[in-house]
């Protein structure tokens, strides 16, 4: 098998049993990777048991060095519904180097712990002291047991205090980056008393036609470098159409670019060693919460990072509450643009806010309002894709291969398919 490892690791936190299972080639060829594979495994696991299991799954190109091939998807199958989101940066590739395409976590640990898969050894490490830690404190704690250069090679996903609580807003973070749209997924780890997962793998990923694969990547990067200015200009022309002044102001000036594994675009931005909110978060803060001042927006984002709250889920839920308050369907003490009030509402663990938008809309018959809010975000994203001439189907295939869909901003769909065929020796079935 090329591209994939053909193996799944199952970890039961209740009894500490860890088991490697083989994944059939036909199964992997059918679902490829990404959310498609993660939700399929989560669905199958959910159908066989009563409790929600957490699944991480990678695509065939993840970790191969193919441009932007960094995605790993985390999925949970809960109450007959799938929840799935991509994990960025280097966690997905590291899972592949650990020798697995997927990781299934089941059971509930007797005490707070973290899972460590380092150099072929899998350990559940009890760590009651990290309860209440922020994600960056948790990462620092895990890495503190190693020399600095080694510790930094351990790729970590973790949850903050919100993920530990009974909430639908808890997000996951990886290597200092808070992942948007992972609201609720953090709580899936929290329910298992699993604070973090750390990975460092040393296994090889074998490719079907390595020479051709590497030659194609070299050509693609050369093409990117030749057209670099042109490509970035075309990307920058899209942002004025999105009308997100907060994003333009926050990302202005002295920013440092950070890339996920093998990504030439490096769309993640940092200032003073802190990740900045991306376009979706800025849109949510500006459009849904009507926050127009940079200081207020960054203050709220820093609060989300410290607490481990998904800023997109928070914005959607707050907007829903505001609109329900307007039609007098619910009485909540919240004002538009009031960051301090938002923080207080979040800190109140009995607040309806923690139920999350989906449950709140269902309970109060406000599904239409919620749909309208979510559509605003989807419409904003559609402007980006339309601007780039990328179809929905192409994006889905790219995501299943383990690549960031933004790769289509810089390379043709056909070249990505060529990479897949050289990596796996298979023809892609779309």
């Amino acid at each position, binding site marked *: 098998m090329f591209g994939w490892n053909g193996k799944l690791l199952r970890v039961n936190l209740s009894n500490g049993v860890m088991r490697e299972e083989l994944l059939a080639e036909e199964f992997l060829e059918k679902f490829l990777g990404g959310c498609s594979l993660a939700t399929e495994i989560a669905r199958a696991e959910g159908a066989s048991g009563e409790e929600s299991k957490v699944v991480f799954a990678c695509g065939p190109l993840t*970790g*191969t*060095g193919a*441009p932007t091939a960094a995605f790993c998807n985390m999925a949970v199958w809960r109450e007959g519904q799938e929840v799935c989101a991509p994990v960025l940066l*280097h966690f997905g590739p590291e899972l592949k*180097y650990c020798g697995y395409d997927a990781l299934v976590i089941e059971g509930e640990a007797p005490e707070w712990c973290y899972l460590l898969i380092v150099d072929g050894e899998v350990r559940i490490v009890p760590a009651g002291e990290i309860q209440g830690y922020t994600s960056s404190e948790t990462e620092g704690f895990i890495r503190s047991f190693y*020399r*600095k*250069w*080694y510790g*930094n090679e351990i790729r970590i996903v973790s949850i903050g205090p919100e993920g530990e609580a009974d909430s639908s807003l808890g997000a996951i973070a990886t290597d200092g980056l808070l992942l948007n749209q992972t609201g609720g997924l953090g709580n899936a780890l929290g329910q298992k008393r699993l604070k973090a997962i750390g990975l460092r793998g*040393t*296994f*090889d*990923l*074998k*490719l079907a036609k*390595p*020479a051709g*694969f*590497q030659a194609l*990547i*070299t050509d693609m*990067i*050369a093409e*990117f*470098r030749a057209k*670099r200015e042109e490509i970035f200009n075309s990307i920058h022309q899209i942002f004025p159409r999105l009308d997100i002044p907060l994003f333009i102001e926050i990302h202005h000036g002295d920013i*440092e*670019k*950070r*890339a*996920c*594994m*093998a*990504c*030439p675009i*490096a769309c993640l931005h940092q200032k003073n*060693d802190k990740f900045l909110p991306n376009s979706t978060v800025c849109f949510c803060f500006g459009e849904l919460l009507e926050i127009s001042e940079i200081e207020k927006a960054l203050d709220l984002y820093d609060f989300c990072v410290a607490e481990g709250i998904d800023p997109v889920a928070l914005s959607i839920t707050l907007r829903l509450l505001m609109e329900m308050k307007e039609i007098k369907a619910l009485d909540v003490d919240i004002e538009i643009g009031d960051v301090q009030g938002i923080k207080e509402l979040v800190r109140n663990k009995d607040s309806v806010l923690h139920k999350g938008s989906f449950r709140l809309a269902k309970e109060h018959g406000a599904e239409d309002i919620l749909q309208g809010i979510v559509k605003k975000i989807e419409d904003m994203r559609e402007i980006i894709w339309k601007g780039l001439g990328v179809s929905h189907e192409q994006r889905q295939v790219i995501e299943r291969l383990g690549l960031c869909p933004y790769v289509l901003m810089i390379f043709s769909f056909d070249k990505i398919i060529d990479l897949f065929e050289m990596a796996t020796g298979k023809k892609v079935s779309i």
Partner: protein
Amino acid sequence: MDPRNYRMRVDTNKCTGCRHCEMACSMVHNQDKANYHRARIRVIDLGDRFLPLMAGPYVSEIEECASKKLVKVGDKVYDQCCLCRASCPNKSIFKEPDSGIPLKCDFCAFREEGPACVQVCASGALSLVKIKEETEEEV
């Protein structure tokens, strides 16, 4: 390409930490395997920046190691072990993961096109400089 005539210029301000260089290095030196642990270049995360580090010669820790020192660059203090290019008994970086044999950057002398890491560096953090031209420029 004769590697003796060149040196690598590293611009840490441009490095985005994508680690394309590591993957390209491992692929060209190991034919069919993608594994950054086999690479002779590693991108070290220093917290505030990334440092692409080419494997230097093997050193005996007892005689030559200076990694216990801290290095101050501007306002920041770095652990010298993170900046050190050497393959040494003290760290598993720049060693074949299976055999433990030390790895050393050979500038991809066997490739007409030159070092693979420079070729795939999309950010321009890595570039090749001809030593002779550089000397003339400096003169």
